[in-house]
C-alpha cells in the first residue's frame, strides 16, 4: 500500500464514525482529491483481495471500516461485542415517515400512522435518530422533526437520496387521490 493509503487506514481505524472524503483529504494537504480517491480504492481492494475480515464501506455519510457480516454471530456469541437492538415496527414506521416528509410535526405523523406517536418520537430522539429541526407556523407552533447523521449511519445510507423515491415504490399514489399536486412536489424534493 502507498503511504497515503496507510495514512487513511490509520485515520479510518482510529475513528468510530464514518469520515467524509473531504475530511480524509485534510489528512494530507499535498494530496489531490484524485489521489485520495485512488488511495481509498487501493485500501478497499486490499481488504477484499487479501481476504481481511473487515471491509471499507462508503455509507453513513462517509467512509468506515466495518467487519464483514459472516463473523457477527461468532463475535456476539462470545460476547465480545453486541449488536444494537432492532427498532420496533412502530419506530421504523415513524422513522420512514420522518425521513420522507421532513420537516414534519407529530400531528402529521399521527395522521399517517393512525396512532399516537409521542413515546416513539421520544425514544427515536433519545437514540439520536431524529432531532427537532424547527417549529411549524401552525397553531401552537408544533415542533418539526428531521432525521440525523446517526440515522444515515444506522441504515448505512450515504445520503437521504439513497432511499427509494416514492414513485419507485410498488404502491404509487394514483391520480384518483386528491392531493396529486402536493405529492408531485414532494417527489421532487426527495429526488
Amino acid at each position, binding site marked *: 500500500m502507498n503511504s497515503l493509503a496507510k495514512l487513511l487506514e490509520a485515520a479510518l481505524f482510529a475513528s468510530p464514525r464514518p469520515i467524509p472524503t473531504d475530511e480524509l483529504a485534510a489528512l494530507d494537504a499535498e494530496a489531490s482529491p484524485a489521489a485520495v480517491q485512488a488511495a481509498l480504492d487501493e485500501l478497499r481492494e486490499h481488504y477484499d483481495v487479501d481476504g481481511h475480515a473487515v471491509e471499507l464501506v462508503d455509507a453513513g455519510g462517509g467512509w468506515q471500516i466495518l467487519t464483514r457480516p459472516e463473523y*457477527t454471530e461468532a463475535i456476539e456469541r462470545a460476547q465480545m461485542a453486541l449488536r444494537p437492538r432492532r427498532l420496533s415496527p412502530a419506530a421504523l414506521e415513524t422513522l420512514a415517515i420522518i425521513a420522507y416528509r421532513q420537516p414534519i410535526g407529530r400531528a402529521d405523523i399521527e395522521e399517517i400512522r393512525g396512532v399516537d406517536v409521542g413515546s416513539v418520537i421520544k425514544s427515536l430522539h433519545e437514540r439520536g435518530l431524529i432531532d427537532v429541526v424547527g417549529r411549524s407556523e401552525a397553531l401552537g407552533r408544533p415542533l418539526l422533526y428531521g432525521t440525523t447523521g446517526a440515522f444515515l449511519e444506522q441504515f448505512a445510507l450515504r445520503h437521504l437520496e439513497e432511499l427509494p423515491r416514492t414513485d419507485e415504490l410498488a404502491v404509487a399514489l394514483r391520480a384518483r387521490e386528491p392531493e396529486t399536486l402536493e405529492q408531485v412536489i414532494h417527489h421532487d424534493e426527495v429526488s
Partner: protein
Amino acid sequence: MDHVTNAGDAGFVVDLPHFSGPLDLLLSLIRDEKVDIYDIPVARICQQFIERMHSLKLNEAAEYLEMAARLLRIKAQMLLPRPDGEEAWEDPRAELVRRLLEYQQMREVVDVLERLGEDRRNRFARAYVPVALTPAVQAPLSLSLAELLGAVDRVLRHVQRPDVHDVISRPIDVDGFIEVVRAVIALRAIARFRDVVPPGSEPWEVLSGLLALLELARRGELRLRQPRPFASVEIKREFAGEAA
C-alpha cells in the same frame, strides 16, 4: 421490542407485533380478503375489523375504536341513496383509500429500512477508541455570538411567557395610590373602593389601588370592611393608627 406502550388517552395499548395500528390491521384484512382497495366492500370489511378487534382484545384501544366508528359511518353513507348524475356523488371511501395507500407506501419504505438496518446491524465498527484521542476527536466549533443570540431569540419567541406579563400593561404605582387613599380618607370618614379607583379604571390602577389599601391596612392607617359578600368595601380611617 416494546409491545406495551402508554399511548396518552388510549390508556394501556397492547401493541401486537403484527399490527402497529388500525391502518395496518385494515390493510391486512384487505389483503386476506383479496378485495380491490379502490372498491372496498365496506360492510364486510367493517364487520371483520370489529371481529378482529374483539379477538385481539383491542376493544379498549381508542385508535382502533375510532377506525371502527369511521368504517361504520362510511358503511352508513354508502347506504344513502345516490343523487342523480354520477359526478355529483363523492365516494365516502375516498379519504380512507387515500390514507390506506399512503400508509402502504410507507410500509414499503419500512421494508427497505428494515433490510438496510439489518445489514448494518451485522457489521461492527471499531469499538475501541484510544482514550488519548478522545478530546481531539471533536472538530473545532464554528459558532458566533450572533448565532447564539439568534438561538436566544428563537427561545424567546417560543417560550411561554408567564401570565403576569400579559395582564399588566402599565407599571403598578402603589406609592402613588397610597397618597390617593390618604387624601381620600382625610376628606371622608368612610370611603368606598370606587372613591379610590373610579369605575372604568385600567387594570393596573385597580391593582395599584388594592395593593395601596392592603398596605395601609397593614400599617394600621385604615380599616377595611365588607358588610356582605361582593358588597362595596368600606374604607375607614383608623385614628389609633394615626396616633401611633
